[in-house]
C-alpha cells in the first residue's frame, strides 16, 4: 500500500492548478457563487472547457480510442478534485466527461456516438438527467413519464422534477416508461431539449440560481433512433452511469477546503484559540479525510479492474457525513460566512447540502449498504 501520490500524479495536479490560475478570471470566487447551472457559469464553462480541451485536460482519463489521453482513474480523481475545489468551472459539463461520454461509448449506437460525443469533446454540450418525477424520487422505478412507439417515433408525455441544468441543456438523458413491467419497463431516450412540446420551469432553490427545474413533456415526438439501448434496458444502464456519478464529485475535497478557509477566517478574527472550536474543526477534518480514504479505496478497485458495487454507496455516505459536519461547523462558528462575508463558504454550503440528495438519497445508500455490504436479510415488500 502506498498512501502518497506518485511524482507523476503530483505533476498532473500541479498542471491543473497552474491551468486554473492562468484561466480563472479575477473575482472568480465571487463569480463562482453562481450555481453550476446558472446562465453565467454555463456561459463561462463553454469557453473554459474549450481551453481545457486545448491542453488535454477536458477528458484525459478517457481511453485513447475515445480521443482521451488514456490516463487512469487516479488522474480522473485528481482532475475532479481540483475542479471541484475551484468551484467547478466546468459547470454542468463535468457530467459529460464523468459519465455521459463513457455511457454513450458503451451503450450508444454509432449514430448517437457520432452526434453526441464530438460536442462533448469540444466542450460545447450540456446535458440534463430526466430522472426524478413528482411521485418517483427515491422510488425511481415507479416513474410514469410514458414513451409510446407510433409509426417509427416515440411520443413522450409526462413530467420530470428537480432536474439540474434543464434550463440550458441541449440534450436530456430521459428515463421513460415503455411498459408496465416496473424496472424492466423503463427505457432511455436522448431528447434534444429544443424539441417542440418541452416546457421547462425553474424552481427557486437554496442551492443556487438556475439549478433545479420542472420539465414537462407534452406529445414530445422523437424518432425511434433516439432510444438509447434497448427498450427496458434503462435500469442496467443507469446503474452503470450512477456508479460513475456517485464517485464523480469528490465533494469531500471542497468540504475540506471550506473548512480550512473557515479556520483561517476564525484565526484572523481571534476565535480559533478556543479549544471547543479547535476540537470541532478537527472532527470535521477527520470526517473529510475519512470520506477521502473511502473514496480512494473505491478508485483503487477501478484501477484494479474490479467491479464497483456497494462500496461506492459507503464512500458516498462518508462524504455526506463530512459535508454535513463542515456545513454545520461554518453555520455555528462563522454564521456571517453565509451572509456575505465569504462567497467561498456560501458556495460550499449551497453545494454541500445537496450531497445527501443528489444521485440517490443518503437513505437509499444506507439501504444498499445494509443489503449488499452487510448482507442483512432484506426488508419485506
Amino acid at each position, binding site marked *: *500500500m502506498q498512501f*502518497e501520490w506518485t511524482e507523476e500524479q503530483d505533476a498532473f495536479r500541479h498542471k491543473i492548478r497552474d491551468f486554473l490560475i492562468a484561466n480563472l478570471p479575477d473575482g472568480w470566487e465571487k463569480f463562482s457563487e453562481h450555481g453550476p447551472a446558472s446562465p453565467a457559469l454555463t456561459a463561462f464553462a463553454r469557453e473554459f472547457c474549450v481551453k481545457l480541451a486545448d491542453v488535454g485536460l477536458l477528458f484525459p482519463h478517457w481511453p485513447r480510442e475515445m480521443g482521451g489521453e488514456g490516463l487512469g482513474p487516479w488522474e480522473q480523481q485528481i482532475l475532479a478534485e481540483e475542479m471541484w475545489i475551484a468551484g467547478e468551472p466546468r459547470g454542468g459539463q463535468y457530467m459529460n466527461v464523468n459519465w455521459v461520454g463513457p455511457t454513450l461509448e458503451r451503450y450508444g449506437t454509432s449514430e448517437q456516438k457520432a452526434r453526441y460525443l464530438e460536442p462533448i469533446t469540444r466542450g460545447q454540450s450540456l446535458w440534463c438527467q430526466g430522472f426524478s418525477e413528482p411521485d418517483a424520487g427515491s422510488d425511481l422505478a415507479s416513474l410514469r413519464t410514458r414513451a409510446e412507439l407510433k409509426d417509427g417515433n416515440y411520443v413522450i408525455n409526462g413530467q420530470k422534477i428537480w432536474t439540474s441544468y434543464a434550463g440550458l441543456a441541449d440534450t436530456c438523458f430521459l428515463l421513460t416508461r415503455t411498459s408496465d413491467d416496473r424496472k424492466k419497463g423503463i427505457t432511455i431516450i436522448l431528447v434534444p431539449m429544443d424539441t417542440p412540446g418541452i416546457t421547462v420551469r425553474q424552481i427557486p432553490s437554496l442551492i443556487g440560481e438556475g439549478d433545479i427545474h420542472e420539465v414537462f413533456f407534452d406529445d414530445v415526438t422523437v424518432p425511434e433512433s433516439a432510444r438509447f439501448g434497448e427498450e427496458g434496458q434503462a435500469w442496467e444502464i443507469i446503474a452503470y452511469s450512477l456508479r460513475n456519478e456517485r464517485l464523480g464529485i469528490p465533494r469531500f475535497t471542497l468540504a475540506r477546503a471550506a473548512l480550512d478557509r473557515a479556520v483561517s477566517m476564525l484565526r484572523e478574527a481571534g476565535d480559533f484559540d478556543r479549544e471547543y472550536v479547535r476540537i470541532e474543526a478537527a472532527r470535521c477534518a477527520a470526517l473529510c479525510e475519512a*470520506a477521502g480514504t473511502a473514496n480512494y479505496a473505491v478508485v483503487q478497485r477501478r484501477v484494479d479492474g474490479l467491479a464497483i458495487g456497494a462500496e461506492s454507496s459507503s464512500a458516498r455516505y462518508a462524504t455526506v457525513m463530512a459535508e454535513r459536519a463542515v456545513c454545520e461547523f461554518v453555520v455555528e462558528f462563522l454564521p456571517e460566512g453565509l451572509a456575505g462575508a465569504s462567497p467561498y463558504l456560501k458556495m460550499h454550503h449551497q453545494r454541500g447540502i445537496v450531497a445527501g440528495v443528489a444521485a440517490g438519497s443518503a437513505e437509499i445508500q444506507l439501504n444498499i449498504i445494509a443489503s449488499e455490504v452487510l448482507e*442483512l436479510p432484506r426488508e*419485506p415488500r
Partner: protein
Amino acid sequence: MQLSLNEDQTQVLDFIDSLAKPYASVPMHDVSLALESAELDQALVENGFLDVMAVEELGPVTAALVIEKLARLPFAVESAASAMVRPLIDPELPRPICLVEEGRLRKPVRFLRPGATVVVVGPSGVRSFTATEDAIAPAQEDTLYAYPVAFLTGLPQAMTLHEVDAAEVTRAWRVAIAAEAAGLLGAALASTVTYVSERKQFGRPLATFQGMRHRLAEDQVLTNTAYWLALRAAGTGDPADAAMALLHAQEAAKRVCYDYHQFLGGMGMTLEHPLHLWTYRLKLLTAELGGRGAQGLAAADALWG
C-alpha cells in the same frame, strides 16, 4: 497512491488467519470478561508477526494490518504497542508493553503484570521500567473492560531514559490504537450483524427493520473509514493523520458500542454472547491518550498550528 494489499501483506494476513484459527471463537462455556491465550501470544512472537515493522518490505502499514487483524479475535493480544511503538523505542524491550501517559497514572493499564515493560511517555521524555509486583496494585477483579488491566502504584525512582522523540512515540501510539480499534470495530459489527440476521421478532429477522438497518449501515461507514484512516496514518507517518485516525476511531467506538448492545437487547447484557469482548475493549480505547478531545486538539495543532 496504491491501496491494494501487496503480495507480502496478503501472505502475512493469510498466515495469521491460519495460525489464529483455533482462537477465532470463544471456547464453549467460557463466560470470561476477558480472554487471553499465552499459546497464541507465543505463536505470534515465534513467527515474528509482532516484528513486521522492522522488515523493509513490510513496514508500518503491515504492522497496522497485523494489529487490526489480531484485534478481531475474541482473545486479547498485546500487539499494538509491541508491533508499532516498541520498534521506535527499543525492539528488544520485553513484552507485554504497557504505554502510560506521564501524569496520568491513575488510569487502568492494559496487560500490566509483573515482567511487563511500562513505558512512560510525556514532557520528561520516553522512560521505561520493568514492572515488579510491588509496582502493581492488588489485582482488580471487578473490571468490566475485556482486557486484563491493572493499576500502577507509582513510578520507580530509576527508569531507563530512551533517546527517542516523545512526540514521535505518541504519534505511533495513536496509530497503533487506531488500528486496534479498527479491528475491534470490524469484529463487533460482524458479530452484531450475525445476531440480528438470525434473531426473529414480530415474525421476521430484526435486521429487516429499517430502523436497525440504517444505523448498522452508518456503523459500517464509520468502521470502514476507521480502517482506512488507521492504515493511512501508518503509511504516511504524519502526526495530523495519526491524530485524526484515532479521533475518528474513538468517535466511532462511542457510537457503535451503544448501538450494538442496544440491538442485541437482553442478549447484549449477558456474557453468553461474545459482543462485550470487542465493545468493552473499544470502550477502554476511547479513553486512550486523553480521549477524543485530546486527539482533536492534537489534530488541530498538527493541521493548523
